[in-house]
């Protein structure tokens, strides 16, 4: 019997990092930057939060507010720096976005795993492994009455604050993109920078801000994963390929963060479906079920390119650096 009540919350928890990553990447892509470094940025966001929390927990007494704020700020700072690096290379120095993104992915994943694996040795502390249970418990704090509400509470109210924040961010991003002046101008930058430039929009600033904000949002995805989902335990490569899946989700949602909320839960569900489908002793089939999110993405990619509707296409100048004097 398929247990939806216990399946759904796990799908949501899988989906939240994807949602944050996808929202961040959507904002970035709307400015015309295809940031393939998102997987790396999510690692960096995660590990920076871990480093912040690690030192704070090492320092002794732990205060609830600081225990949340310090990792949060560290995470955002780390991912901001990655975003700045990406912008500096691709916008200021007009480097190839694909190559820069891949280099950042390599660097970021390496950065996360390196400090995750070597933090204890480097600081010379005497704990056996990084398990930030105290910090994590603050991140995982859900509403106190959630458990009393039975299935409803379990399905909708049992998450840590970052999960709700992710949904709020997605909704706000959608609103900003669709309804505000800034959003309109950002879309114009991604579609046709020459036009936006002629209209007096500062292309460089929009690209920097959108990409950096996008990076910070994506970084939060890494933080959510390690602090909430993984209960504060960092293990190398555990975050896996979720960053790439987040990029896939951007296409799946046809560049709409609000669509991303449900899609990310769907993706999260597909990601863990294998755990819920009774396959008996045949472990091998589970591996095939893990293919689902990727196959679904491929299908969406093909179908959307076949339908070729203008509104559903990637921003026109995605991946192309802008240089005003190049005519």
């Amino acid at each position, binding site marked *: 019997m398929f247990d939806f009540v216990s399946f759904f919350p796990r799908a949501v928890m899988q989906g939240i990092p994807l949602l944050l990553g996808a929202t961040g990447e959507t904002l970035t892509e709307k400015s015309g930057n*295809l940031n*393939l470094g998102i997987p790396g940025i999510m690692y960096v966001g995660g590990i920076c939060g871990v480093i912040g929390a690690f030192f704070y927990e090492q320092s002794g007494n732990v205060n609830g507010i600081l225990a949340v704020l310090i990792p949060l700020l560290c995470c955002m700072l780390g991912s901001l720096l990655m975003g700045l*690096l990406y912008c*500096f*290379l691709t916008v200021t*120095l*007009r*480097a*190839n976005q*694909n*190559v*820069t993104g*891949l*280099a*950042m*992915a*390599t*660097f*970021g*994943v*390496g*950065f*996360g*795993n*390196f*400090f*995750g*694996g*070597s933090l204890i*040795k*480097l600081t010379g502390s005497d704990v056996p492994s990084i398990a930030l249970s105290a910090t994590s418990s603050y991140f995982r704090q859900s509403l106190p009455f959630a458990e009393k509400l039975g299935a409803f509470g379990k399905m909708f109210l049992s998450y840590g604050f970052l999960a709700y924040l992710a949904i709020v961010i997605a909704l706000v991003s959608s609103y900003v993109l669709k309804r505000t002046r800034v959003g309109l101008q950002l879309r114009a930058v991604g579609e046709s920078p020459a036009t936006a430039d002629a209209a007096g929009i*500062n292309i*460089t600033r929009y690209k920097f801000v959108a990409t950096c904000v996008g990076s910070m949002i994506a970084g939060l995805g890494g933080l959510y994963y390690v602090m909430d989902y993984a209960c504060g335990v960092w293990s*190398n490569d555990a975050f896996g*390929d979720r960053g*790439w899946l987040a*990029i*896939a989700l951007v*296409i799946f949602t046809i560049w709409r963060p609000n669509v991303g909320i449900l899609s990310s839960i769907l993706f999260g569900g597909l990601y863990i479906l294998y755990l819920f489908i009774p396959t008996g002793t045949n*472990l*091998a*089939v589970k*591996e*095939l079920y*893990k*293919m689902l999110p*990727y*196959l679904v*993405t*491929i299908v969406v*990619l*093909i179908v959307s*390119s*076949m339908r*070729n509707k203008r509104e559903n296409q*990637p921003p026109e100048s995605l991946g192309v650096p802008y*240089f*005003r*004097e*190049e005519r």
Partner: protein
Amino acid sequence: MANKSGRSVLHISKRGALPWYAAWAIRGAAIVLALIVSGVFTAALTGLNPLGVYAAMIQGAFGTERKVWILGQNLAILLCVSLAVTPAFKMRFWNVGGEGQILIGGLATAACMILLGDKIPNWLLIIVMVVSSVLAGAIWGGIPAICKARWNTNETLFTLMMNYVATQLVAFMVIVWEVPKGAGKIGIINQNTEAGWLPQIGSYKYLLNILVVAALTVVMYFYLTRSKQGYEISVVGESERTARYVGIKVGKVIVRTMMISGGLCGLAGLLLVGGTDHTITTTIAGGRGFTAVMVAWLAKFNPFTMVFTSFLLVFLSRGASEITTIYGLNHSFGDILTGIILFFIIGSEFFINYRLSFLKNTGKGE
């Protein structure tokens, strides 16, 4: 792009062609700078003096004969994948699916070794392995290409997703073939019979791989610069419209080129599975599909330059792994150093393509 806030003193303009030596001097300077930065970074983490860091890295790469051979093997495989992705890139087709194409090639090899290992003569088995691995890679690369050619589907994301499909396929087959049951891995295939193991030249385990890739480098160079197909690839990459105008069948070129690209990645899978590892895991490609993108781009798609750029990256990763062993650090240290070097080289391209000049501000009335 003049500085909008007021005085524009820094002017950026596109350069004409820079002589090759000047371009390489800039790249060389970037690499030196990057080495300095990574040396300082390493020193800060380990407390070793920077020169010691370099010594350890060189030790790690060339310290013993075995290490030199491992360096050569890693270089050969990375170069092979880089050569594979190059024709696609020249066509402006962003094949980031090298990873999956290697895996699927390796999987095909392993399948032949396991299923046919004791059924057909070894020479025939090896031929079957070569054909099936190249074919598997070609199909894996061809699928996104067909969609690109027909509906202009975004190839970067498609090939990326194909990586994970391949990974899961390998994971599935690993469990199907696992030895012993429940081990979660295949182990060395045909350990006793050595059926399907690529022949070893003399006592050198890695020599065959190196020779194959060396030959491939030369072939690829001439394919790209001298052959009609190579010429078509350049035209399509530069302008699809022009290609159509002169009667080149663009879709056909895209699919053909991607099948070559995927097929060569599959060959890399064969070299890994049949030549050295004699087993298959989901991580056998080791990120080479992505690294190869950077190797090819850094070398500006010139196969001979790629020997050098892939050497640089392999040297870094071998050197870094030495440091991590000495200091008990995490093996991902190499990725960080690779990242730093790449950032510097990527950034240096700007100074090759653009001219920075400080203009005297002649605008009046300020």
